[in-house]
């Protein structure tokens, strides 16, 4: 399944300053147009028109939930109390996802400028980068570059003489997937147990320390300077599909020759990503399926191999773009076993707050383990379905995300499950 057309060149926006082994310096960022948006907008125009631009650009949140960033900014009421906070979500614990790591290592000032601009729009005076502990090197880079930005006058008191003050702290997490969920993250930052808190109130109304708080993903924030500099239309034009906007970092892993993170337009066909950028399938095997956006999305079967990778197209086939972390499986991979592995993750990471998630994931894991290991019974399929249905009524989005692969396994690969049960074991396992 090699595509006939040669590899296309797409504009590099977020990764324009990417170097193989080092980060881009402040100078490099500046000479590529960096901090110009900040200089041009701070204090110049009304914040409302800036928010309008973000809204018009239809910048959908890159953290997985695809919430429009412009709408989120507008939910901070004009008369909301101060101080206000901006949190950069660099927790990135969705299995398969590593794009934020790449972004920070490539061009940290892009994130810093994005944060400063977003903070300006929300009138936030304190920024916090919440970063997972595995990314210690990224945390150190950020701490250093924040200091450099501060010295250069892009952060701190009275930024560029605009009267606007904003500074950034780097907060290292203790490490848990749920800390990536906004409300749990806010609890974590307050030194509480990182259990989520169901809105209302929304964080933009009552977040960190009960004050208005905007939380955005690293990639979302990185898009902001470019949008403000080049306009909403430009951002929209980057995408290949009508409903999409911007470029996207696709992290490809699994059974491909060249796993990696690639900046490509929203709406690019999946097949093109795999073949032209990720080096095609490994060992000449065939594409069987992928998880298109991290562990919290369903399996995308081979029928959709050419699907346009944007939010709407994936939605139309009952899937999600999620974090655009594409995990690829070939025809020798057992999806029952893969799902069991994912459930191991979800069962281990469930925060323990609500019943469906806390008890449901270990239950699902147990059933899939039995099916995979020859202890499956026909009635387990019904049990899996029931579990998924009722686990969708969990407290936060963790559980609905975690059951997505299971549900798609049941919907698309039921015959594989049946084969496991009838054959008393995994048909994919090489018998030795």
């Amino acid at each position, binding site marked *: 399944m090699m595509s006939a057309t040669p590899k296309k060149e797409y504009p590099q926006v977020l990764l324009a300053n990417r170097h193989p082994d080092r980060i881009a310096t402040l100078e490099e960022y500046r000479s590529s147009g960096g901090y110009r948006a900040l200089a041009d907008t701070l204090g110049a125009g009304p914040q409302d028109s800036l928010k309008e631009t973000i809204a018009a650009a239809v910048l959908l949140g890159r953290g997985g939930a695809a919430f429009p960033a412009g709408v989120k900014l507008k939910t901070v009421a004009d008369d909301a109390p101060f101080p206000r906070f901006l949190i950069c979500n660099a927790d990135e614990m969705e299995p398969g996802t590593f794009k934020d790591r790449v972004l920070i290592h490539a061009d940290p000032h892009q994130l810093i400028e994005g944060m400063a601009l977003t903070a300006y729009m929300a009138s936030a005076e304190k920024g916090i980068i919440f970063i997972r502990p595995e990314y210690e090197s990224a945390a150190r880079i950020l701490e250093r570059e924040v200091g450099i930005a501060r010295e250069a006058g892009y952060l701190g008191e009275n930024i560029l003489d605009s009267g606007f003050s904003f500074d950034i702290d780097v907060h290292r997490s203790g490490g848990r997937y749920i800390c990536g969920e906004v409300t749990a993250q806010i609890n974590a930052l307050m030194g509480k147990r990182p259990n989520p808190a169901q809105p209302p109130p929304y964080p933009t109304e009552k977040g960190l320390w009960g004050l208005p708080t905007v939380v955005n993903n690293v990639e979302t924030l990185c898009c902001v300077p470019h949008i403000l500099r080049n306009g909403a239309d430009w951002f929209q034009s980057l995408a290949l599909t009508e409903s999409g906007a911007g470029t996207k970092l696709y992290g490809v892993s699994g059974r491909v020759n060249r796993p990696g993170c690639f900046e490509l337009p929203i709406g690019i066909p999946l097949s093109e990503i795999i073949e032209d950028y990720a080096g095609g399938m490994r060992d000449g095997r065939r594409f069987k399926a992928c998880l298109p956006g991290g562990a919290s999305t369903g399996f995308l079967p081979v029928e959709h191999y050419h699907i346009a990778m944007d939010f709407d197209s994936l939605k139309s086939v009952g899937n999600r773009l999620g974090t655009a972390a594409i995990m690829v499986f070939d025809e020798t991979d057992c999806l029952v076993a893969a799902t069991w592995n994912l459930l191991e993750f979800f069962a281990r990471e469930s925060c323990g707050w609500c019943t469906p998630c*806390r*008890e449901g994931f270990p239950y699902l894991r*147990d059933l899939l383990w039995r099916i995979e290991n020859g202890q499956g019974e026909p009635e387990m399929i019904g049990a899996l379905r*029931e579990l998924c249905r*009722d686990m969708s*009524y969990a407290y936060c989005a963790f559980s609905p995300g975690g059951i997505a692969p299971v549900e798609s396994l049941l919907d698309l690969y039921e015959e594989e499950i049946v084969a496991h049960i009838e054959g008393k074991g995994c048909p994919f396992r090489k018998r030795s």
Partner: protein
Amino acid sequence: MPTLTIDNRRIEVPEGTKVIEAAEALGIMIPRFCYHRALGSVGACRVCAVKIVDGTRKGVQMSCMLDVEEGMVVSTDDPEAVAMRRHVIEWLMLHHPHDCPVCDEGGHCLLQDMTVSGGHGLRRYLGNKRTHLDQYLGPRIQHEMNRCIQCYRCVRYYREFSGYRDLGVTGIGNRVYFGREREGTLENPFSGNLIDICPTGVFTDKPARYFGRRWDLQRGPSVCIHCSLGCSVTVGARYREVARVEARYAKAVNGHFICDRGRWGFPYTNEASRPRAARVDGEATTVGEACAAARNRLLHVAETAGSEAVACLGSERAGLETLKAVAGICRANGWADPLFWLERRARENVAAAVSLLGDDLVLSLRELEAADCVLVFGADPLGEAPMAALALRQARRQGAPVFVFDPRPVELPLDFHHVPLAIEDLPECIRSLVGAAGDRETARGADPTVRSFTDQLAEPSVPPPPEAVAALRTSRRPAVVCGTDVTDAAAIGLAADFAALMKAQGRRAGLFYLMPGANGFGAALAGTEAASLEELLPRIEGGEIRALVAVEADPLGLYPDRGRIEAAMRKLDLLVVLDYLDTDSAAAADVFLPSTTVFETGGTWINQEGRIQIVRGAHRGGIPVSQTGGGGHPPRVFMEEVPGGQAAASGQTLTRLSPAEVKGASEWVRLPPDTDKQSGTRAVLPDPSALRFAPERTALSGAAGDEAMLTVIAVDRTFGTEVLSSRSPWLSAEETAPTVWMHPEEAGRVPLSDGDLLEIDAGGGSLVLPVKIVENMARRTLVIPRHRDAAWQRLGATRLRIERDCIRKAQPVGENAPVKESPPR
């Protein structure tokens, strides 16, 4: 007020009501684990699923998390919702042990109910059960973590609601653990509520374990008589023994909870040493014989020395029936005026509070929670009336600042401002705050007492703290809380004036007094002409009074001058004691008559807000089977007598020993016609005007400033001082060894360091106690707990002033255990 439809029935409920609450109002109990009315909704357990057929958010939703909407249509029996709820129960049972037959929660376990009603009977899950180790949490609460269903009620109650920090939830996922950092007794004096609030058997009542299923117990509604708040409780007894006390929901008083003093204070009723038989001159006899003997001897005293030579003493721990009987017997026989108080200050203080507590000012405990600013004068809520501390915490959680003006090192489970002033400065301090309460002119039109009060305002000598001034300025619902234990009538009067003044300014101000005993209010009403023993004592000492009848009162054990009271008792020709406790006075009695406790015969109590609460006995009483023992239960031979069953309510016994004809005790209590006897919680303020006690509002101005003098106050503590609960073996571990508290500056002047012994020469002799130096208390003040081991009865009074040279450092001598006097006879 939105109207919605639940299961085809319409109901209108206030905005902000949750669907689960609206359903409950219709009598539909949607299953719940994490939701609790006192703790609110958190949406953790997911068992309250319903189907929203019509509304903004349709489909299966959690009814505890969803606000009602106009036109909403809810189905609780939709198959999808039922399936979800059933699934939640299955999940919760994955790891729950099948130990119901030996679990003390069995029979009143919410999880058991849900499992049965949800129809979950077959285990599908093939995996193992996750297990935990339990912790030792002290003598009162048993921990069984395997039974936990992770509803988080315990930590939410313990930390958020009650404000203690030594219980938490550790771990993650399906290994979350609810417990302490390490084994040890829970520090929360309200920890017992964990037992009631846990929907399963994780926290059970340890002393009551393995004694009987809830349905085996003779259970009945009762009130707690361990302080003046009168919280509602349910008592459960079996085998002639009270087994456990649980909190009973009372909307206006304690809500869902009680304190540990109230929950585990009951062992006095089961004590092996409880006197069950009547005694005449130390010889056991029948109650009939003893009544006859008492009657004859009383008659003899009256005939030889005049009827005025007989006095009768009740106490604030007795029920209203008993107190009225005391007053009635005195009147019918022409005896001296009835006595209800040991000290004159106590009598005056309670009379002042009762006479000033008007219908328009009085706050219930629940209303206190709704205050937006609370000023506490001369009270230590946790020590004197623990649930009041919990109410203050709720007010604080809603944002109300709390100010405590008290000389003691007051501790509360909330952040509050403590002004540790000398008790003598309190009236002046209250006066000074009036200026802060705002516009004085508008109050001029108010009632005369308020007017005279504001007219008196001179420059205050004690400046009010600025935070309090600021808080008062903006407060719409200020509450004044005032103690009657260490204060005096002047402060009590000013507190009422202050509240009245704020009321006159158009605020919803309220007044909340704490009082001694469970029935101080009743005592004040029953004995409108009463005196105190202190006032009568000269007449005993002078030989005028020759006989004393003490009814549920213990002058020997509790009068603050032990030497003097012993000498006075020796002068008597006759001491008759009616009680259910083996007090010092009971031991010294010429005639002793056993009486019954609230658990056996009930009674009427009036709490500190004037709420009349009528309760019945829950069991017949008698010597517990565990004490008659020897396999004698069930009895092999039919007996009409219950072992130890001769005791009767002391009011009734009183009528039998009265020489003059008196009415039956129950008829003495005339309740307002609308008193609801069934619920026993009807709020009625008895007419306080009968008292007509107008306290002087003058203070001992400047007294506290006298460098040569010290003030000694003997005070109540949460555990160990209250007469009944201090007999509980399960609470004794929580009593801190008695010490005398003093400010570092005072200690420095002696000089003393922490733990040194201090000798105090006071009105009633000298006592030696170890010193505890604390910063957060008044200077020139010594605070001593009225603990049985503190020899506080040598002080001479519960509040007194002594010369500074009456205290000195004492050397530890051999065995320095404080001397406990033995009864004189």
